[in-house]
């Protein structure tokens, strides 16, 4: 019997192994046929023993062949993997960088100004806030061309956008945006104060709050003791400086017929000062607290 090595390299192996197996099989079947011929029992036993021997050898060779093929498959996959590992980690690095950049872009809204590049230029987003409360955002879509143009925007019509643009847009975009930021933040802040007054302190108002869209002219009547007998005060707040959230002119008048007593006159004057120096809703919050104190004193 030839001792051919079934594990010949590469392309020949398939033919090699199978061919070898076929040869062995042929030999087996031959020896089987031979063993089928009538023989003495002893001769048969001997033949059977040899057959088993040969079969065992064939089986072992086949097992080895299968194992070898498994091993070489694993090896070739392993050859591919290292390169894959390098490519993937480059991708992972890029992905991580991308995530970081996206996060930082998100964070810019906390500076009050953020934006996105567009095909034509840039769309800037202005965020507003008042004393820690985050309020509305507005956007301005700029088209980069000569001259620089505002394509569209969400700035309310009563904000002097054209004026500000005429002053700064062509010479200094930053100045234009910062100036617009000032106006929008101030407007947001005034609006917020008026809204809070209406929603939180309606009990102290004796009539509706009158306001203009720009929220720089407010007029209302209020009473410190809602159930009480005194006449209400009438307040008029004018915010001449559109970049400010506190009024420039305040008048508090008394609506009664009889002249005010000294203590009431003092109160009226102090209210005028309060409205000039503190945000509207905070002034009313202090009124409400004082009212509570008064009640407590009545009880005791």
């Amino acid at each position: 019997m030839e001792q051919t090595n079934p594990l010949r390299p590469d392309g020949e192996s398939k033919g090699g192994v199978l061919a070898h197996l076929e040869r062995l099989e042929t030999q087996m079947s031959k020896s089987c046929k031979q063993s089928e011929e009538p023989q003495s029992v002893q001769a048969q036993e001997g033949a059977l023993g040899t057959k088993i021997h040969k079969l065992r050898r064939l089986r072992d060779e086949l097992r080895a062949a299968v194992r070898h093929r498994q091993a070489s498959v694993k090896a070739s996959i392993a050859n591919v993997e290292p390169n894959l590992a390098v490519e993937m980690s480059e991708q992972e690095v890029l992905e991580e960088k991308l995530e970081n950049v996206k996060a930082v872009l998100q964070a810019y809204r906390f500076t009050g100004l953020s934006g996105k590049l567009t095909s034509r230029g840039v769309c800037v987003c202005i965020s507003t806030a008042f004393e820690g409360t985050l309020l509305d955002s507005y956007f301005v879509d700029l088209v980069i061309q000569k001259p620089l143009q505002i394509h569209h925007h969400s700035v309310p019509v009563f904000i002097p956008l054209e004026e500000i643009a005429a002053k700064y847009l062509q010479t200094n975009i930053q100045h234009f945006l910062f100036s617009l930021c000032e106006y929008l933040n101030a407007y947001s802040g005034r609006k917020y104060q008026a809204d809070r007054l209406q929603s939180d302190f309606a009990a102290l108002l004796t009539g509706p709050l009158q306001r203009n869209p720009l929220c720089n002219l407010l007029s209302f009547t209020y009473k410190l003791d809602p159930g009480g007998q005194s006449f209400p005060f009438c307040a008029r707040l004018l915010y001449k400086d559109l970049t400010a959230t506190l009024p420039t002119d305040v008048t508090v008048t008394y609506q009664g017929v009889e002249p005010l007593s000294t203590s009431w006159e003092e109160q009226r004057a102090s209210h005028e000062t309060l409205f000039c120096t503190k945000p509207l809703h905070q002034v009313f919050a202090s009124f409400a607290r004082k009212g509570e104190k008064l009640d407590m004193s009545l009880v005791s």
Partner: protein
Amino acid sequence: MDTELAEVRALQAEIAALRRACEDQPAPWEEKSGVQKSFQAIQQFSSEGWKSSKDLKSQLGHLESELSFLSTLTGINIRNYSKQTEDLTGTEMTEKSIRKVLQRHRLSGNCHMVTFQLEFQILEIQNKERLSSAVTDLNIIMEPTECSELSEFVSRAEERKDLFMFFRSLHFFVEWFEYRKRTFEHFKEKYPEAVHLSEGPSSPSMVIRSASQPGFELVIVWRIQIDEDGKVFPKLDLLTKVPQRALELDKNRAIETAPLSFRTLLGVLGIEAALESLIKSLCAEQNG
């Protein structure tokens, strides 16, 4: 005999199975299923990977230019940002359809030579009518810490929880700071003997001396102030150091009124021209 026959049959069966296994398992270079499928999958992944890697690179480039624009616009360079969200909605609140969420933000970066690290919390309350968002806590760490004007401003921003004011004022403060530094450096270069900067170009004051007139000194103190509303403005003052004898001779009280005159001069000429005229006046002999 029987056992041997049984063994023969078993061996033959095993051999048949092994032969099948040999045929089924393709060599790696063969175009068959199993390994090739996974191999193809790997190939596809890597080619898609290259495609998306190109996409990633162009996406990254686009976003980085967006970032550079924002950084130039706001004057603020944010390097890192992270956020955590905590849902504080209790069962009672869910019944009334109120939702409460606490966000914890952390960001760090720099504005020229000033680096900052902010940690703040935003509480979001959503009820049927509206969504309200408020900053509930603000902590700011800044370096360098020596600037006293800055530290006062930082505490005010923290108290008011005013993020926007913090960033905007920081930007303008740094702009003024850099301008002051450039101006002082310029004069030091132009008049090296006359001009003295005690703490280097970043110092808040500039001293003008003339070698030919010892005992006379003009000190220009240039402070950068941030007011209650976060508005940044420069405040320049002139201090004079004059020998006693000169004071006695000064009938017109020019020295006494110098600080006031300086303010007027500033208003008329602007900072640079005013400073230059002061230097020239003291060093007139040297330059003449």
